[in-house]
């Protein structure tokens, strides 16, 4: 039995990351390195180059007589730029970036590539000064997005993504330079590698803290994501089918999540079919989980849960008559298959899945009925031992079902529910106990015999230990009264 939702990352590292996230300091960058090259260079530690050496490489690259020589010089420079010390020296050298940009825009294709790789290394730095030194290159990186060399475009996109996430100052340059229209044009590429890179870059842009005001809304001038064709293309790329690629889908699912949780214009996304696309995607995910071992499907499940859950809170998610647009009960089946998968693979993500279950069942008698008719109550109860957060969510979902009246409570009874509740009453967490009390009250109200059975199983003793707890005492007393006197 797991407690506390164990992550698979070593505790020390994860703790630091969580802290960073809390402080909104989580900066994630992607680095492309050629594994084949790395293997070949194994054992050769990248050197730290000084000014003189860097100057020599640049001179050779720019003016060497033989192409192989020029290329070789840039390769050496690129390797050196893997070291932060070399990066620092490089950016401080007068004219170095200018020369690099000149090589980036030269007519020698292989020099272009190597120059782009150099820039990429710089973009990945943790030092702001190094990253911001790349700014003179951005107009060219954007221009190249409408080119045709897919590998080069991929590299430019990852570099741009790294630059984007670095600072608002960088984005203040990229936005007027037209990054959003450039991405919107590039998303029509048929190359999966380009699409994945684009998704990454776009997700960084959408994650920016000024995104809800300056990047997402359609009222913004040239930099509006919702005003572009990007959302439609994103949804297309998330549609299940033989063309769905996991790496690409992960990126765009995260993009969609950042848009949706910014709550700018979710109604627009719903009219573009976001709910049905994501619902079908959820079904597809559950199917995939049954077929393959792992392959990182939880990386897609997480943003899909988030998107669906948040969209379901929108008024636009309801069709005429107050029913949810998303009604297919296979969604519930899929969700449980995914919950089971998460329990084994990544229990720390269970709350996100249960959040979705709450939003599906809260105002939907149909989905509550599905939970009962598909026999999902017992599996749900099984999750009660995972963690406090999970337990509260499970109990909330059960309350969603029970509060709909006697017809529902009847189907919750008898069965393991009572003994599970007696277990949760033994928790020390106030929220867990509080939610248990709410559920008990509903059962006492709607299910004849429930109070009696509760008494017989030493329920009163279970209640007693919480008699003095401030947030719980009123409810404890009320239940004691009901149990004893009906």
């Amino acid at each position, binding site marked *: 039995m797991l407690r506390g939702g164990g992550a698979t990352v070593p505790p020390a590292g994860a703790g630091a990351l969580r802290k960073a996230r809390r402080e909104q300091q989580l900066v994630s960058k992607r680095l492309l390195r050629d594994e084949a090259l790395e293997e070949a260079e194994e054992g050769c530690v990248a050197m730290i180059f000084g000014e003189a050496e860097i100057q020599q490489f640049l001179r050779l690259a*720019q003016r060497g007589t033989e192409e192989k020589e020029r290329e070789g010089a840039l390769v050496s420079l690129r390797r050196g730029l893997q070291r932060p010390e070399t990066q620092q020296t490089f950016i401080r050298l007068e004219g170095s970036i200018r020369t690099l940009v000149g090589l980036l825009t030269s007519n020698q294709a292989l020099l272009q590539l190597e120059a782009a790789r150099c820039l990429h290394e710089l973009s990945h730095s943790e030092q702001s000064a190094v990253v911001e030194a790349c700014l003179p290159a951005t107009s060219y990186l954007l221009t190249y997005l409408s080119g045709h060399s897919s590998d080069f475009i991929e590299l430019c996109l990852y570099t741009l993504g790294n630059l984007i996430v670095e600072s608002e100052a960088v984005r203040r340059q990229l936005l007027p330079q037209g990054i959003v229209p450039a991405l919107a044009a590039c998303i029509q590429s048929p190359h999966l590698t380009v699409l994945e890179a684009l998704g990454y870059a776009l997700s960084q842009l959408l994650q920016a803290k000024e995104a809800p005001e300056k990047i997402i809304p359609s009222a913004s001038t040239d930099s509006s994501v919702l005003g572009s064709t990007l959302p439609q293309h994103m949804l297309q790329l998330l549609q299940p089918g033989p063309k769905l690629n996991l790496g690409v889908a992960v990126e765009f699912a995260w993009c969609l999540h950042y848009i949706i949780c910014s709550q700018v214009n979710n109604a627009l996304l719903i009219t573009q079919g976001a709910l049905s696309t994501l619902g079908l995607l959820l079904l597809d995910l559950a199917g995939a989980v049954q077929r393959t071992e792992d392959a990182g499907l939880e990386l897609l499940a997480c943003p899909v849960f988030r998107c669906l859950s948040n969209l379901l809170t929108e008024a636009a998610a309801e069709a005429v008559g107050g029913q949810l647009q998303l009604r297919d009960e296979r969604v519930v089946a899929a969700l449980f298959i995914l919950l089971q998968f998460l329990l084994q693979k990544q229990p720390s993500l269970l709350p996100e899945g249960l959040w979705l279950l709450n939003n599906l069942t809260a105002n939907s008698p149909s989905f509550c009925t599905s939970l009962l008719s598909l026999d999902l109550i017992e599996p749900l109860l099984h999750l009660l031992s995972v963690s406090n957060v999970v337990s509260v969510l499970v109990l909330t979902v059960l309350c969603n079902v029970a509060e709909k009246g006697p017809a529902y409570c009847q189907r919750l009874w008898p069965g393991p529910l009572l003994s599970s509740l007696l277990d949760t009453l033994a928790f020390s967490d106030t929220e867990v106990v509080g939610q248990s009390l709410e559920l008990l009250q509903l059962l006492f109200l709607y299910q004849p015999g429930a109070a009696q059975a509760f008494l017989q199983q030493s329920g009163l003793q279970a209640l007693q230990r919480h008699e003095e707890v401030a947030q719980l005492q009123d409810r404890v007393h009320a239940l004691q009264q009901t149990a004893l006197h009906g």
Partner: protein
Amino acid sequence: MQLPPALHARLAGAPGSAEPLPVERDPAARTAPFRFAPRPVRFPREHDFFEEGDVQRHLYLQDVLTQVGGAPERPRVPEFTCQVAGCCQVFDALEDYEHHYHTLHRNVCSFCKRAFPSGHLLDTHILEWHDSLFQILAERQDMYQCLVEGCTEKFRTSRDRKEHLVMRHLYPVDFRFDKPRKSRGPVMPGAAEQVLAEAPGDDGVPSEVDAMEVCSEHVEPPPAPAGERRAYSHRVPHEDLKGPRREISTSNGGSSAALWRCCRAFPPRRRGPRTLARAALHVAGL
């Protein structure tokens, strides 16, 4: 967590919703001290609830969550020469050739041999440099289109456009793909003058001005095919990339189709995303 066996069948079954059981609420349910009311919950961007998932996402991006699977190899092929007439570049990897072709031969102006990074820039160049009708119209109306994708502004002169690019779009003053045509007035310092194509074979020092427009290896291209969409268009016709590749023959007799299949992106194969991409999702029977 045991799931009922019928659940998997339900997933694979037909869409449909359950006929809801009758809802019948007692007002006593929500009276104090009890307060439960079902409600969908919404979490905004920075909510702590997202902490765990965000950390997972971060680890994924940083490639800490690596998956098992070797990187696809970058095949070396016997040396071959670029097929474009007059170009004598030699390659031993298809990825390098792909980039070379796109950089130098794909968007080339047949008048002046300049190569451009995109069709859009090439079209603009042809219009502004080689279209006499454009020059006539430009005397009377704003014809110089902003180069930034999505911006519909037009300007009277290329100088006005440059100013717009710099002020509005924060472009560099010496942006390589915005060279004014033969300047009629005094040459401005720093601005590029018209640069003639260097003689073929002259691989001299590329000054910062030369940049992309000069294609020193390029020689007279074949004539434009019929059916170009503009009468004045003189784009060098390019084949889809698949074209040149199919013509590649290898000295060991290996089929080019096989080479095409195993060709993968150049730079860096990285772990994580690439190998994840192999677990393609399929909807079973949906």
